[in-house]
Every structure is written in C-alpha cells, then in structure tokens.
C-alpha cells in the first residue's frame, strides 16, 4: 500500500512544484515591499520626531501582539466589509508585507541606535545635513548589525507564509492539505511539504549565521 501511495505522490509532484512557486512568489513580493517599508519605519522609529516614533511603536506592538492568523483573517474578511475587495493572493501579500515590515522596523531601529553617538556628533560638527548623516555615516555602519537578523527575518517570512493557506492561497502547505485528502499518508505527504520548506529555509538560516560571524569579525577589526 505504501508503495502505491508513494507512486501516487510522485505523480502529483508537479502540483507540489506549483505550490512551491506560489510560496516563493508570495514570500518574495512581501520580502521586497516589507524591507522597503521596514527601513522607512525603522528610520522614523529611531528618529527625533516623537509623534512619529510613538505611532510607529504602537503599530509594531499591535502587529507583534496578535497572531498572524488573526491578522490575515482581519484583512481578508473585514476589509471587504468597508469596501475594499481583495482576492486571497493580494490579501496574503498585504498581510505578510505588514508583518515583515513591522519586524524589520524594529531591526533597523535597533541597528541605527547601536551606532555610537559620537559618530553623529562628529557628522554634525562636520556640517552634514540630517539626510547626509543618515546616508553616509549612520546607515553604512548600522547595516552591519542589521543584515544578519534581516536574513533571519526572511526565514520567518517564508515560514509564516504557510499560514496564508488558511484563506485558500494554494501554497506548499495548501497543496499538502489537498493532497492528504486523496493520499491518506500524512507522514509522507507532509514529509514532502517539510522537505520543500527545508530546501528554502536551511540555506537562508546558514546565510544568516555566516553573516553574523563575518560582520562581527569586521566590526571588531575596526
């Protein structure tokens, strides 16, 4: 029986690859958008404008304090009620972008705040404008402490993207869920699902660890 199911599973491999493609598409779209928004959020959060700091902080708490599954339900079921019609795919990208942006905001803000204060003072004394300080002095140094957790956040993003299967986006997890109704070998089906995620996440985790070691070496040399 096991062999029969195994052959069946192999025959539905193209379906799994479609799911893999969907996971990659949803994740990479959210990755790009989330990183851009997160950097702006982080600059505001570490900036001098107090109301902006507080609003960004409240938003981050709101996103951090609620489960992603609830957030995606809110976006998918409530936004249509106030006149914004969304299909599952766009709802998934919006929810994941929002989630990733809030975490990257915290990463970027703490990276900026970790740059020694003297650097900014020296820049001010050299007559650099606020934008120039950020662009030439603070961000290039902050990026060293931002990069490793940023890649770590991308791993979380790929893993969190599995939750969008709950609103019917046909990603790897959803494909597994659909397949297991037909091939009742849960260990085998979700073993394959896990393997596909592993293929994406494991290299990213190692990249994050590598960056961490490398960045620390560089900063102690300076």
């Amino acid at each position, binding site marked *: 029986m096991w062999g029969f199911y195994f052959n069946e599973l192999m025959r539905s491999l193209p379906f799994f690859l479609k799911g893999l493609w969907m996971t990659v598409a949803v994740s990479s779209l959210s990755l790009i958008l989330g990183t851009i928004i997160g950097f702006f959020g982080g600059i505001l959060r570490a900036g001098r404008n107090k109301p902006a700091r507080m609003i960004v902080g409240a938003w981050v*708490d709101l996103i951090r*304090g609620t489960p992603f*599954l609830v957030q995606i339900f809110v976006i998918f079921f*409530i936004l249509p009620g106030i006149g914004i019609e969304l299909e599952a795919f766009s709802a998934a990208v919006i929810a994941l972008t929002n989630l990733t942006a809030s975490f990257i905001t915290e990463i970027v803000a703490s990276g900026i705040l970790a740059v020694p204060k003297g650097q900014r003072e020296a820049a001010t004394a050299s007559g650099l404008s606020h934008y120039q300080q950020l662009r030439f002095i603070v961000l290039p140094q902050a990026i060293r402490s931002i990069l490793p957790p940023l890649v770590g956040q991308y791993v979380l993003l790929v893993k969190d993207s599995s939750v969008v299967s709950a609103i019917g986006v046909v990603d790897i997890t959803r494909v597994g*869920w659909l397949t*297991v109704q037909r091939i009742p070998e*849960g260990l085998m089906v*979700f073993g394959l*699902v896990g393997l596909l995620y*592993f293929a994406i996440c494991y290299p990213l985790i190692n990249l994050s660890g590598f960056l961490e070691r490398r960045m620390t070496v560089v900063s102690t040399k300076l």
Partner: protein
Amino acid sequence: MLEGFNFRIILEYMPLYMQCFAATLWLSGVSLLGAVLVGIIACAMRLSQSRLMRSIAGVYIETIRSTPLLAQLYFFYFGLPSMGIMLPEWVTGVIALVLNSGAYYAEIIRAGIQAIAFGQIEAGIASGLSYFQRMRHIILPQALGNTIRPMLGQAIILVKDSSLLSLISIMELTRAGQVLTSERFTPAEGFLTTAAFYLIIYYLLKAFSGWSEKRLIFREAH
C-alpha cells in the same frame, strides 16, 4: 469606517470568549512547560560529549527551525492516524507546539550558557565547589539573567502560535472569532475581539519582561 460595529453581539458571545481565552491560556501554559523541558534536554544533548547525542539534537533543532509550524502541525495531525496512533486533537496540538518551541528554547538556553565566561567555571572548580554547587550558584543564576528576556519573547511567540490550533478545530481564541463570524456573519466583531484578547496577554508578558530586567534576582549576572 466601522459604524455598524455591534458591541451587543460581542457581549452575547462573551461567555464563549472567556471559555476560549482560558483554553488558549492553558494550552499555551502546558506547551510552555513542555517546551522548556524539551529545550533543556535538547540543549544538554547538544552540549554533551557524545557525538551521537550532539547530532541527534542538531538534526532535531535544524529540522524544526527550517520548517513552518503549520506544516509540523499537519504532519502530526494527518501523520499520527496513518501510523495507527489516535490522539485527541488538543494532544496533537500540544505535541506540535512543544516540539516546535522546544527547539527554539534549546537555542536560547545554549546561548545563555555559552555566554558565561569559562573563567567563572574555573574559579568555581578552584574554590572546591561540586558540579551541582557550580550549577546552582554560578552557572544557572547567570544563564537565567542572560536568557529571561528571549525566553519570555519565545513565550509570546508560543501564545500567538497556539492560534494555529484553530485550524485543526480546537476551541481557542481564534476559533471563537471564526465561530462568531460563521454564525452571525460579523467578521469585524469576531476577529477584532479575538485580537484584543491576544493583546492583553502580549502586554502582560511584555510588562513582565521589562519588570524582570529591573529585578535584582535576574540581574545578579550584570
């Protein structure tokens, strides 16, 4: 925006919410205890002399960290019955949560222990302290000081992750929102109330995390 927001329905469903709030609390509480226990064991294995132990723990931790919780949950939910093991849904859910968070706790505890300077342990040996005295008076107090914050952070993640149990039809906070939505077609009332309950837990744990940093017992190390 939400002028039709109906507080009466929320009040009507309050008993259900309280019941589900309690369910989320004890499901996460039990999983938290189990996860810390699994984390301590996995960490001890990872730091042990035996190469076999080290690689078993390594494979466990890497596998868990590279795959999404939802895939792990479905793996047990669909996989255990296909092996002939029939368990109530909530047991399956707790197993998945424990094994998932356990891997992260193993890494947190390991980082905490390895952050202790080796000279501390040598000084303990030189002072004639036994292994358990060293553990009790030197290593653990410092490791606790190092790890209390990330441990509480993981506890917050665990509470949020427990929302995924709603997808295998366990009654907890997120499920309560789904019930209200499907019975009364009021997703806004349903899921925003759910979110509010999660925020209560989040702010409590966050406040505790900030408070513990100020407490002497956790600061002995610093």
